């Protein structure tokens, strides 16, 4: 068990430091903090102009939760796919280490970073756009953001495994990030979307979490959103399982075809 935990925590942290391209301050600050800051400002002003929802809070909460995907989608994709691009996938797969610990351990630093980016997003909302949720709702809001970041990270795991075989994994990660803005009710009330788009949105991470966060930020209780949170958790488990399954299938197939490090 201790080996499992060592691979999970220490292995996850080391791999994050090695594989996350944006970890240094000169790129982390503009990319992981600067870009979300302006995303929140952009959509809040667009929301004001379009009158798409009742007020700024809709856009601030939606985008502040969604920006965790900066870490969850891009970070997780790098944390898995870069093993191949940096030429370390072969040695990694030659070790006897538990694959579940290797795979899930990569999500821990990504999750922590996603939480930080999201918290920064709420800070931007508070400082620049006068977002003021009730103080008593903040612990519940933190819980909702944690859960949503977990589900987003597991979604990133699936994208990362695609990067183990696909050359254009950044294309896939970029596309996923932007499609989340469209499908997950970040800036558009879900009932405005056509039924098929809403159905896709409901099968993605973020959607239920954002809905819950908005209700909590408006003064709701955790009990009011428990259904949404259980659904978000279910989505997280489903994507984690799918990601791990893909990872193992690709490992077996890459060994069989001798294309583990083929670029």
């Amino acid at each position, binding site marked *: 068990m201790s080996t499992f935990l060592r691979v999970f925590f220490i292995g996850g942290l080391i791999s994050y430091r090695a594989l996350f391209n944006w970890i240094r301050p000169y790129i982390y600050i503009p990319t992981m903090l600067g870009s979300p800051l302006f995303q929140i400002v952009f959509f809040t002003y667009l929301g004001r102009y*379009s009158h798409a929802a009742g007020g700024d809070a809709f856009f601030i909460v939606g985008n502040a939760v969604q920006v965790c995907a900066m870490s969850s989608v891009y970070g997780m994709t790098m944390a898995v796919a870069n093993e191949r691009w940096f030429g370390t996938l072969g040695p990694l797969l030659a070790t006897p280490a538990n694959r579940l610990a290797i795979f899930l351990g990569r999500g821990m630093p990504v999750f922590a970073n996603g939480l930080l980016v999201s918290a920064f997003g709420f800070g931007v909302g508070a400082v620049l756009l006068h977002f003021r949720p009730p103080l008593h709702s903040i612990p519940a809001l933190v819980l909702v953001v944690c859960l949503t970041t977990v589900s987003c990270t597991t979604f990133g795991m699936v994208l990362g495994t695609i990067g183990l075989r696909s050359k254009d994994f950044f294309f896939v990660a970029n596309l996923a990030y932007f499609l989340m803005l469209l499908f997950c009710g970040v800036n*558009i009330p879900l009932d405005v979307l056509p039924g098929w788009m809403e159905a896709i949105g409901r099968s993605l991470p973020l959607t239920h979490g954002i809905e819950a966060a908005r209700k909590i930020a408006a003064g709701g209780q955790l009990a009011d959103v428990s259904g949404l949170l259980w659904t978000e958790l279910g989505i997280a488990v489903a994507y984690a399982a799918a990601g791990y399954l893909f990872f193992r299938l690709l490992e077996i197939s890459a060994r069989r075809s001798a294309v583990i490090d083929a670029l």
Partner: protein
Amino acid sequence: MLGIVRSGFVMNVKMLTTSGFFLLTSTVQPVIFATIAFYMFKAGGRPGTLLYAALGAGMMGIWSSTLFGSGGALQWNRWQGTLELLVAAPPPFIVVLLPLTLATSVTGAYSLVATLGWGWLLFDVPLHLVHPLAFAIAVPAAVVSLGLMGLLMASSFILYRHANALSNLLEYPVWVATGLIFPLALLPGWVTPISWLLAPRWGIDAIRHAALGSGAVWFPVAMCAATGAAYLVLAAAFLRIFEREARARATLALT
């Protein structure tokens, strides 16, 4: 010189159109942002603004393509080991760099076609242009001025090894500060003077005024030309200083 610009431009357009990243930036991403804007305006009961949104989303795509293409131009050449060769070639470096940055903004112009076509096909956006001739002049004016803005960015990034980080940062602020998809009047007053310095602001004014008949076309077209000329002069000066500095410090090829 013109031959170098022409052949460099054609080669770079061909390279960019085979890049998945540029396909995403210049067609898929603007269509996604246009769709978000269409649904937001629909949700707010403002369907009359759909052409306004389509034009703005198209211009957003041109900016993104120019930003990532021109901002990353030197970095990509560094990674590929061709930057020293380009600098060492007999023509002035600006003549080598200009077709590259123009190619990124011209490739970005796909986004305007994509958002207008997408809007017309799926959201019944009316494609009636009030001044079609002026529109046909406003679009190239906007595209060329953005290409020259890209040249200025590329020239100032020559000393900065992490230009891609700045490119990641600058996408949204310019969308905001130039009123591409919502009016500048919504923003604090100090943003407007900043927008005067940015070609996308004049580009979108020219395109919108030509398409919607909502104002004068020739003044923003003239401002596109003026800002473009200013960028060209500044880029030439920056390149002269920064290129020499990078050669003296032997940092030209460092990644």
